[in-house]
């Protein structure tokens, strides 16, 4: 039984030490960066480092709150021997941060309470709070609340103004209209709004009016046939009457294919 608990404690300590070491190296890396690469360091990399630290902290606190982890609070560390002599083993363990295990250092390192200065300050404040008269305290709370509501008002007013401004700016940016887009796209795509108005018969009214315009040039003048010499012009004139005749015909022939 005892043995099992000891084993558990040991493995928990091992993993805690590992996490703490991870954390320590990341902090060291970050400090190194700040000190040596401050000229080239950009904000995103700095934030990445920060995220790494926060990740390590999270995993450390997870281990501490894990079921399997023994309650460390219930364990005591008892210094058996203090010595002003330099302790090489200790120095090595602590990367030469702590070289002696002596009276002046041990209370600080093994302390489990708040720092003495902070402890003093807390005590003073608690004492002060206990001595303040009830009415006085009420007054102070009211005054404080007044200040807070005032600031709240200022902030919300500023927010309102900012909202109005940004929505106004949004309107100004209305460079295109969805309904116009749809109108244009359906017009060129399906002829919506472009089709001739149906007349009484339900047939499309003479839709081809504009189409009947005699095409410029004569039909034979095609693409890629090279230059047509000036002599063409006389011929175009010759052809004009026949073009008109043809067009009248084709206008009447539209109907068979009307719906």
């Amino acid at each position, binding site marked *: 039984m005892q043995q099992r608990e000891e084993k558990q404690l040991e493995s928990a300590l091992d993993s805690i030490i590992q996490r703490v070491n991870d954390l320590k190296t990341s902090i060291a890396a970050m400090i190194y960066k700040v000190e040596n690469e401050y000229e080239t360091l950009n904000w995103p990399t700095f934030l990445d480092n920060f995220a790494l630290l926060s990740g390590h902290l999270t995993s450390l606190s997870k281990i501490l709150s894990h079921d399997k982890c023994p309650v460390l609070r219930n364990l005591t560390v008892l210094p058996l021997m203090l010595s002003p002599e330099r302790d090489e083993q200790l120095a090595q363990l602590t990367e030469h941060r702590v070289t002696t295990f002596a009276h002046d250092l041990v209370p600080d390192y093994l302390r489990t309470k708040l720092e003495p200065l902070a402890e003093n300050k807390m005590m003073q404040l608690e004492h002060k709070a206990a001595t303040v008269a009830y009415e006085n305290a009420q007054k102070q709370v009211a005054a404080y609340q007044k200040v807070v509501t005032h600031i709240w008002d200022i902030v919300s007013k500023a927010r309102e103004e900012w909202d109005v401004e940004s929505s106004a700016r949004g309107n100004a*940016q*209305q*460079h*295109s*209209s969805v309904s*116009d*887009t*749809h*109108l*244009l*796209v*359906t*017009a*060129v*795509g*399906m*002829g919506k*709004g*472009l*089709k*001739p108005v149906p007349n009484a018969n339900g047939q499309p*009214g*003479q*839709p*081809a*009016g*504009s*189409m009947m*315009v005699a*095409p*410029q*040039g*004569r*039909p*034979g*003048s*095609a*693409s*890629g046939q090279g230059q047509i010499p000036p002599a063409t012009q006389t011929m175009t004139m010759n052809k004009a009457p026949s073009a008109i005749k*043809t*067009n009248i015909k*084709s206008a009447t*022939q*539209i109907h068979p*294919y*009307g*719906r």
Partner: protein
Amino acid sequence: MHDGGKATRVIGIRSAEQVLTKNMTTPDSAKDSLTSALNSNIIPNREYLLQGSVVDQYVEVLLHRLRGLCDNVDDGAETFYDHEMCFSLCMNSSGNPLVFPLRVRRALDAQDAPYQLRYIGQQELGDKNRPTIVRSSIDVACSASIVEFLQELGCRLDFEYTARGYMFRKGRMKITVSKICKCGGGNKPGENIELISQSYLVELSVLAPSGYDAIAEDMRVFAEQLKPLVHLEKIDYKRL
């Protein structure tokens, strides 16, 4: 979707060159060379398309931005003024209505330019991961007799309009910014025009052989650069 007559002319010339290379010693039948062109997948018969619009008062801002982004930096935007007629060949085949749409486009500002005949297939929107509409498209430069030819072929004129605006190029991409007008009944296109909207239609398109899907990604990136002036999107007009 609609090509400034000018823009499609470029395509027409390219396909002509492809056929030309097959000339001289053994005159293959044109059908054979077309089949081999089809098989080697060099005919640009797929259109990648994004559409949007910009309201009239901001069109200058958009044109300014396009001038900066596109290839025609030196000469500025090319203008076009086209008349498009949309025909369809319809019939009932054992109860199933068959419709074959054909469009004719001609440049009103360049009267001696060839007419443009165009077939546009069903548009495929694909899933969310596909950045653009894709549809099959066949562009053919043709003589002015095409209108009469189509009518006699049995085609019905569904609708017509004019598009006037600017065209930009960026690599293989084509950007048109155009004003769409209804053709006044019985008038020549260009007279009595009736604007149908207070916005310009903006289209970004590429004609490519099938399988060049990488271009769609380039288009998405380019469209991104025009925001928030224009939101170029794939729009399924059949569902609107």
